């Protein structure tokens, strides 16, 4: 065995969607065994798969069952196995033409071709014009966590069913969506607000995952066009110069949380922004501290001293690879690893690499001393 090679092994239970596997390195070779599919041979099962860097990102060689069922070899040429090195922000996926966007809450985005996205991923959009005077440029450039509803559809947490928004249809020229590749490298941070529910406490809905915890201290930046400026940390009429902060008292989901600010008498939030958006700044909430003193509590299946985590969708906690630390503190969420995509065989076009939901998949990943591909 060479001196500097790295080998890792482990397992995951497939959800049927692309699976991210974090490792301490970026592998140059990956081998998969779908234990479930190997147990009971059936058509389109993929019990074995293999990838190495020289094949190229997103490819894989698979062994899959044909109709007999007998094992045959096949290849995956897109959404196969790929590696990632998530260390820098401001990286994006390819542009995808938008076919339409509905006026609804939540708005439904339809792409002109299959998007390949998964729920919990973050996208931004551009060129959202139906004509020179209609459309919804108000939400262009805003990072949205998506919930996938079909191969060409997903929803975004924004109410476009308002007077200043016009539905997009017919694949308008220049209307594109693209994925934000590593949206949560540094957590917690600044989030865009899509809705506010005012009352004795204030319920905040954000456009992407807030990654706040109970005890998080937050500040609001609400430009006057958005209405609820009383939430802003400054100005302060009672103690001039002293910022007013709120505390997160409960976390409802990945993009909803409750803050300990009595906003009963405040101006209503207005996301029905005018069509002309040149220079429009957005309402935001930003982490500024916390009142916690302990780390993440241990739970079933977690490490003994759990690291901080992100919640990209629903209430699913994804642990970072960092050290344990006080909850609510700023932490780095960079990582290496590989992704098992949901691509299919070139011949067996219903044989899905990542398997079906509930499949138990074992992996071996290796970084070799000697590789011929740059970046490994």
């Amino acid at each position: 065995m060479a001196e500097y090679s790295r080998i890792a092994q482990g397992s995951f239970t497939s959800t049927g969607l692309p699976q991210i596997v974090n490792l301490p390195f970026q592998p140059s070779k990956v081998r998969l065994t779908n234990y479930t599919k190997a147990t009971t041979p059936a058509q389109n099962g993929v019990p074995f798969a293999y990838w190495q860097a020289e094949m190229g990102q997103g490819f894989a060689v698979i062994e899959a069952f044909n109709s007999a069922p007998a094992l045959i070899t096949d290849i995956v040429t897109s959404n196969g196995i790929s590696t990632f090195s998530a260390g820098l922000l401001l990286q994006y996926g390819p542009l995808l033409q938008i076919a339409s966007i509905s006026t609804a809450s939540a708005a439904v985005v339809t792409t002109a071709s299959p998007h390949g996205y998964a729920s919990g991923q973050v996208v931004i959009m551009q060129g959202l014009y139906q004509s020179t005077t209609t459309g919804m440029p108000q939400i262009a450039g805003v990072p949205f966590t998506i919930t996938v509803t079909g191969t060409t559809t997903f929803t975004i947490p924004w109410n476009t069913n308002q007077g200043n928004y016009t539905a997009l249809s017919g694949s308008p020229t220049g209307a594109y969506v693209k994925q934000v590749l590593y949206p949560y490298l540094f957590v917690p941070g600044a989030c865009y607000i899509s809705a506010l529910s005012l009352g004795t406490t204030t319920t905040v809905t954000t456009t992407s995952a807030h990654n706040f915890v109970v005890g998080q201290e937050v500040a609001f930046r609400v430009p006057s066009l958005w209405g609820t400026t009383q939430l802003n940390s400054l100005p302060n009429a009672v103690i001039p110069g002293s910022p007013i902060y709120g505390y997160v008292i409960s976390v409802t989901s990945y993009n909803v949380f409750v803050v300990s600010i009595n906003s009963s008498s405040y101006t209503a939030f207005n996301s029905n922004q005018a069509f002309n958006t040149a220079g429009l700044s957005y309402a935001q909430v930003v982490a500024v501290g916390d009142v916690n003193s302990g780390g993440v509590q241990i739970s079933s299946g977690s490490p003994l001293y759990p690291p901080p985590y992100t919640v990209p969708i629903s209430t699913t906690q994804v642990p970072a690879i960092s050290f344990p630390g006080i909850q609510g503190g700023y932490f780095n969420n960079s990582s290496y690893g590989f992704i098992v995509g949901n691509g299919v065989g070139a011949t067996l076009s219903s044989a899905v690499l990542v398997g079906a939901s509930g499949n138990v998949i074992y992996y071996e990943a290796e970084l070799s001393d000697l590789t011929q591909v740059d970046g490994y």
Partner: protein
Amino acid sequence: MSSIANSNNLGPLVLQSVMPSILYTPTPYMNYRNVADKASVPMHGGTTARFMRARALKPATIQINPDGIDPGLQKPQRDVIDAIMARYGTGCIINETLLVQNQDPVLAWVGDRLGVAGKQGEDLLLRDFVVSAASPIYASGGQVQDNPTNYGVSDFSNLAATLDTNNAIKFTEGLKAIDGYGSGPTRPAFYMLASCELEPDFDALTGSGFISAYNMSYPNKAIPSEFGNIFNIRILVSSENGVARGASANGRDVYYNPVLGKQALTHISQDGESMRLIYRDPYFSGAYAQNATLVIKFWQAQALTQDTGIRNSLCTRAGNYGGV
């Protein structure tokens, strides 16, 4: 078939003289490290750096009643900011040439590059942290009908007004009453960390408020990365500043240019050290292999220690000026 024994087929002998010094490696300015406050957790000090800031007390503006009854007292409070340390590093394998050549020069230049890679890593971590954590303000003063627009001079007025209203502390004033960063060519000022690609846009504001570093009253005091200033915002540029390609409302590039005062951003290291250079001697790792390694390792965390004193100023460009 020709043969190498035939001198007619041999190329001319090429002599070479290796120049005495190695050429410089193009390296971006690393502005974030310079404008960030510095803090350090002690060795064995745990994984979390904690900052505390006293809250302002209510000013004493109400007179005490002459009947001798004391007014109610205040409860002093502090805000807490936590940052979790992380470990970073990179390194090189120096292969088994020790026995046939002098390895010292190789170690010297590889060590030099590792040091730069580490420093650039620190800077990029700070850059991306600020992109994530600081509130964006979209430029609105330019002529480009996009969101954000390109810069107009009013954007700088608004940024300065925002930070001044927030009581952000300018560099060369305030805490400790010292020149916190440089002895500048301008009066107390905030810093903007901008992309070099915006230089033509700044130049276009000459006469409207922009003063090139070249034309400052004391240009010899300008920082090497300093491009100029607009009002009381000094502009430092770097080719590695944050740019989101094609991310505007209409698909233009969006530039993340944080504007900050003192103590807004803190760069946290461990045990007062910047980074550690680790050399492992060549040793036998196989029947034949004998390799050395040279690596750098550092610990870092980062925090917005005064959220009121920093904003991400987002803009696009007036045009694509080309140049590659």
